[in-house]
């Protein structure tokens, strides 16, 4: 059985307005997939289609090889900002009600509450929460559910920097431990950078792969003379790419390896070591500009 959510040749329109055209994508367990696009480009529509909140015109959506129209899909958790909780219940009461659990049993998720710094707030009524706290609470609710897949629509929009970091850490950890499949939708690419395994974007009703994020780490080494540069390239057992006569880039698998490289390069006239950041944002900008040019 194929453990994934497969979207195949999906078409969706609202009356005359076409939103998605021939969309194909796969959310595999153990991967975090990012989806970006402009406001109104159809990102949320795609999630709502997968969740069966709205119907689609044509195509198929399969969850673990079963068509979503054939049976209820209980294995997908999702976060959307429209969803709410009971204002007169405390956080704990809301969790107990929605998860159908006793409040005492909820203590097993303490780690999650702590990560979002919500331990104290869960004793307060939901209506007293700020926007950011409501968002954090929504994510706590999501992470306490035993699901195989998570679809997250703008989950980071109201979180502070710390909250974003904790959320990403928790998701990463859960994906590694429990092999969740995650689709995270955002209109802010910087929220997804360095967090997702793949990033897709929606442009002109179509979905396209922007990048498969490679785990390689790249450093740029600059030397005082050409000879030192060339000798170091020849000596290193790593993938290298010469930039000019005095510098080259090297790809490594882990940060620890750079120390050995620096040690060897220092024996020659090493001047500078710079970590190379391949900005996904520039790729996205190029992709979009490219499409505009094509048009």
């Amino acid at each position, binding site marked *: 059985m194929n453990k994934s959510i497969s979207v195949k040749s999906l078409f969706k329109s609202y009356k005359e307005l076409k939103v998605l055209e021939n969309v194909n994508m796969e959310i595999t367990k153990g991967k975090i997939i990012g989806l970006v696009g402009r406001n109104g480009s159809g990102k949320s529509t795609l999630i709502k289609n997968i*969740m069966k909140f709205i119907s689609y015109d044509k195509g198929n959506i399969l969850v673990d090889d079963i068509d979503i129209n054939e049976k209820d899909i209980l294995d997908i*958790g999702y976060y959307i900002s429209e*969803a709410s909780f009971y204002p007169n219940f405390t956080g704990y009461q809301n969790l*107990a*009600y929605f998860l159908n659990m006793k409040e005492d049993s909820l203590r097993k998720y303490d780690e999650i509450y702590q990560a979002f710094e919500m331990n104290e707030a869960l004793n307060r009524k939901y209506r007293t929460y700020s926007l950011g706290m409501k968002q954090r609470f929504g994510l706590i609710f999501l992470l306490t559910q035993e699901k195989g897949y998570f679809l997250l629509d703008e989950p980071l929009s109201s979180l502070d920097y710390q909250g974003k970091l904790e959320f990403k850490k928790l998701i990463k950890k859960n994906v590694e431990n429990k092999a969740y499949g995650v689709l995270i939708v955002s209109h802010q690419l910087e929220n997804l950078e360095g967090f997702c395994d793949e990033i897709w974007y929606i442009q002109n009703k179509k979905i396209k792969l922007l990048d498969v994020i490679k785990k390689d780490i790249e450093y740029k080494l600059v030397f005082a003379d050409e000879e030192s540069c060339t000798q170091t390239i020849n000596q290193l057992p790593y993938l290298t790419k010469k930039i000019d006569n005095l510098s080259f880039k090297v790809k490594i698998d882990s940060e620890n390896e750079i120390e050995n490289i620096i040690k060897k390069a220092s024996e020659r006239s090493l001047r500078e070591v710079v970590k190379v950041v391949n900005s996904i944002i520039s790729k996205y900008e190029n992709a979009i500009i490219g499409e505009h040019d094509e048009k």
Partner: protein
Amino acid sequence: MMRNEFYRISNSHIFYFLILLSVIAVMLLSNFYVNNTYNDDSYFNMEINEYSSINDLNTLIDEVEIEIANLDVNSEYYENDLDQLNKEKEVYEYLISNYIPFVDLYEYSAIRDFRNDRMAFTLWSNGMVSFVCLLVSFIIVLFLVNLDYLYKTNINLYNTSRSKTDILIKKYFSYIVISVFFYILMTLLTKVFGSVLSIDKNYILLVGENINIISINELMIYDTISNCINLLFFGSLFFFVAALVRDFFISLIANLGLIAVFGFFIPYQYPDNHLLQLMQSSFDSYCEMVEGTIILWTIIIKTTIILLIGFFSIYSFKRQRVKF
């Protein structure tokens, strides 16, 4: 899950507001009844003559037979008069085999609202409590089923690991328990007001297709249970309509429409129609001498309506998408 529903409803101001409002309404109406009672000695519509022994009853039968023999067969009222006298004779015959002293017997159809005794008050208050509880049911249904669609809590609620059907059925049973709780609470409250009135007689004579005598206590118990079942029928109708339409405001309008049709339109437009039997409890119909077959058909129709709309509503609820 039912525990959670009770917890949710008991945490809501609406619940306490409803209790308070219902208590005030029932108290005011009961008090109004008690302060406006009157004495009425005419217990018997059929003008059954007073008797003090079985011998008296035999004499009364003889008198009726003479009256029957003297009826003018050419009179346009002959058939009616004959039926009336035959029924009267049947009553005397029944009373001979089930002797109850005349002073201890009511006739059901002679009971009037605001009569100065506890039984008349109980029958009146059971109807009044049913109506109050019906309005409460209507609001509880909105709270349990439709409020989620207003608050958008439905999006989270119906997408957890439990099936939608399971959640809806648990809500339905919670609703049944809450409605019965309200009914019992209001009924007990009316008992307090009823206690200031005395019970004049102990038995009641029901004259319909058959003749029957039951004790006042039995009558009160049957009437209470029967009204409660009738309340659950209408409450269930509200519930399944609410689950079918889901939207808060559409459900509000649809169920208000049901109340208008069943509570006002049919009773006032078709007061003599059998449709009216759909409104009242089976026991009320029985006491009001409605034919047994009609009562049976009413029960079958009501049960069929609830089963059909119940299954359709649950099926449709399961199939429908989460509403935004």
